[in-house]
């Protein structure tokens, strides 16, 4: 019975065999997960946000555990786009894994350049534009906090890109629907939601912030209610825009909440740290839960919680 559920989904015009993906920054470029799962079995691998140049990332400590969550302040450590194209993307392509490549830039021009370099790269299925990384030196640099800046980035990336472009949004805004609309108007084919919430912890022994970067991004099940709410609000306002939902997904039922709220696929992030097999486990659980509820196709549940709701 369970095998009879069709798990096929799509992100804009890209068809995926199933809706469970990794989350950017929580699976590197897939290779380290290979002992635990076959990356080709996932809907796609979402790679760590790559920038133009190699980046050292921040000083340590870079993480703090918090109740049902964690803070991170990595600062986008990475090899830069050249090394990524030379070593990381080909590895995924060779294994038949679909890659959602996350890009991050310090300026609109840098985003454009990244998109240009990635155009036509084998294995690239979707571009995820990380305009919402909280680990930047100033809040003013978070593009996703401003509808105009967000739109500017999306527009230039879209112009350079031959695959669907998903804008990754921050929940730390007064009006996420406004930012979403602005990205879609600028050409975004879909939206990834949510990036981490800005948070911090203070070490009560040293009497100083735990993180070297002072503030960091809060992820994990703690933020799931905020993430589901964001997906819900945006799907309600923009029902035809595909959403890649994420934030605290630990089980198949958690994933189902996002689908019911309007996501077409989900990313599994922090859960991988808890359980390196999480994405495949969650996929199996989701399949079983759908079967148990009598659904034959994944697409039947996307946005279902909105239907028949009078308000």
């Amino acid at each position, binding site marked *: 019975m369970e095998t009879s559920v069709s798990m096929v989904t799509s992100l804009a015009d890209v068809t995926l065999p199933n809706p469970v993906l990794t989350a950017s*920054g*929580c*699976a*590197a470029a897939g290779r*380290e*997960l*290979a*002992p*635990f799962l076959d990356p080709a079995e996932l809907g796609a691998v979402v790679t*760590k946000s790559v*920038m133009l*140049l*190699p*980046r*050292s*990332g*921040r*000083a*340590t*400590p*870079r*993480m703090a*555990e918090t*109740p*049902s*969550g*964690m803070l*991170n302040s*990595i*600062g*986008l*450590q*990475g090899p*830069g786009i050249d090394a990524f194209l030379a070593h990381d993307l080909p590895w995924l392509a060779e294994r038949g894994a679909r890659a959602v490549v996350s890009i*991050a*830039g*310090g*300026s609109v021009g840098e985003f454009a350049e990244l998109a240009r370099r990635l155009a036509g790269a084998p294995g690239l299925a979707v571009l995820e534009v990380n305009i919402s990384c909280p680990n*930047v*030196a100033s809040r003013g*640099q978070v593009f996703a906090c401003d509808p105009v800046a967000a739109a500017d980035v999306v527009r230039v990336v879209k112009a350079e890109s031959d695959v669907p472009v998903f804008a990754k949004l921050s929940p730390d805004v007064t009006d996420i629907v406004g930012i979403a609309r602005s990205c879609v108007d600028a050409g975004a084919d879909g939206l990834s939601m949510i990036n981490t919430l800005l948070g911090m912890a203070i070490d009560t022994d040293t009497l100083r912030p735990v993180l*070297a970067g002072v503030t960091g991004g809060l992820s*994990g*099940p703690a933020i799931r209610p905020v993430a589901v709410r964001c997906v819900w609000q945006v799907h309600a306002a923009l029902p035809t825009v595909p959403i890649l939902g994420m934030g605290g997904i630990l089980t198949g039922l958690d994933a189902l909440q996002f689908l019911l709220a309007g996501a077409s696929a989900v990313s599994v992030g*922090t*859960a*991988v*740290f*808890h*359980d*390196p*097999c999480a994405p495949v486990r969650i996929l199996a659980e989701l399949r079983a839960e759908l079967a148990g509820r009598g659904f034959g196709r994944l697409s039947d549940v996307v946005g279902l919680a909105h239907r028949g709701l009078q308000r």
Partner: protein
Amino acid sequence: MRAPSQVTARVVAIEPAGAYQLLTLAAPTVAAGSEPGQFVAVAVGGPVTSMLLRRSFALYTADPGTGLIQIVVAEHGPGTAWLVRVEPGASLDVVGPLGRPFRLPPEAGTAVLVAGGYGSAPMFDLARRLRAGGSAVHMVIGAGSAERLFGVDEAHAVADSVVVLTDDGSRGIQGLVTRPLPQLLGPAGASMVYACGPMAMLEAVGAAAASHDVPCQVAVEESMACGIGVCMTCVLPVIGADGRTRMLRSCVEGPVFDAERIRWKDVGTLPADVLGADAMVVH
């Protein structure tokens, strides 16, 4: 070195060992391919825990024959507080073996193994392997106080000589583990040093080894979110063969590093000459 796996390990025994608890777990795939210096990452807190992150522990023993592994757990915060209270028969979710082990020397020589606190855990298997390869092994074991020493008796069984030290003099010589090093590393002394313990100790041991021109491998302990190389939380500045410093992940590129490669004074900072530090200015 074997690829890590995620297993459900039964707690076979849990017994006090001084200030620590010694956990014996049935984890055949972990036991099968591990080497001294590798570690395991254990999920803590049970099914509805608020603690998402695994806790890391060096492998103390790993017996491919029985499929058993052992770890030595110091109670520290809530995760280890939970772990030291598991009951025999309980199941733990364990990922391992993780990280790079201590490298054995290409040819026999004389090794000095220096351990602080529970940092001695990986040293006994290492000593056995070194001796099996024909090397002489001298162990230096230190801790804050007697009950925080681990495995002194076993040290005597696996090493040619053992020096025990405590900060408070409650057992052995009073002083730090670096105290006997000049003698052990002196002329006609050791050809290699291995160390595991607190970072300050590792730095000091590394310095002592360097001053005697003896290569030194250390197993570091950095705060880790994933333990498997995907999150980038566990980095420290390490000088590469090309002379450039990189932020390396201690979970997959360590925890064992050459002491002389680590920029000890810069751990917890971002030196300007680290590869890619320049890019941090932009954003």
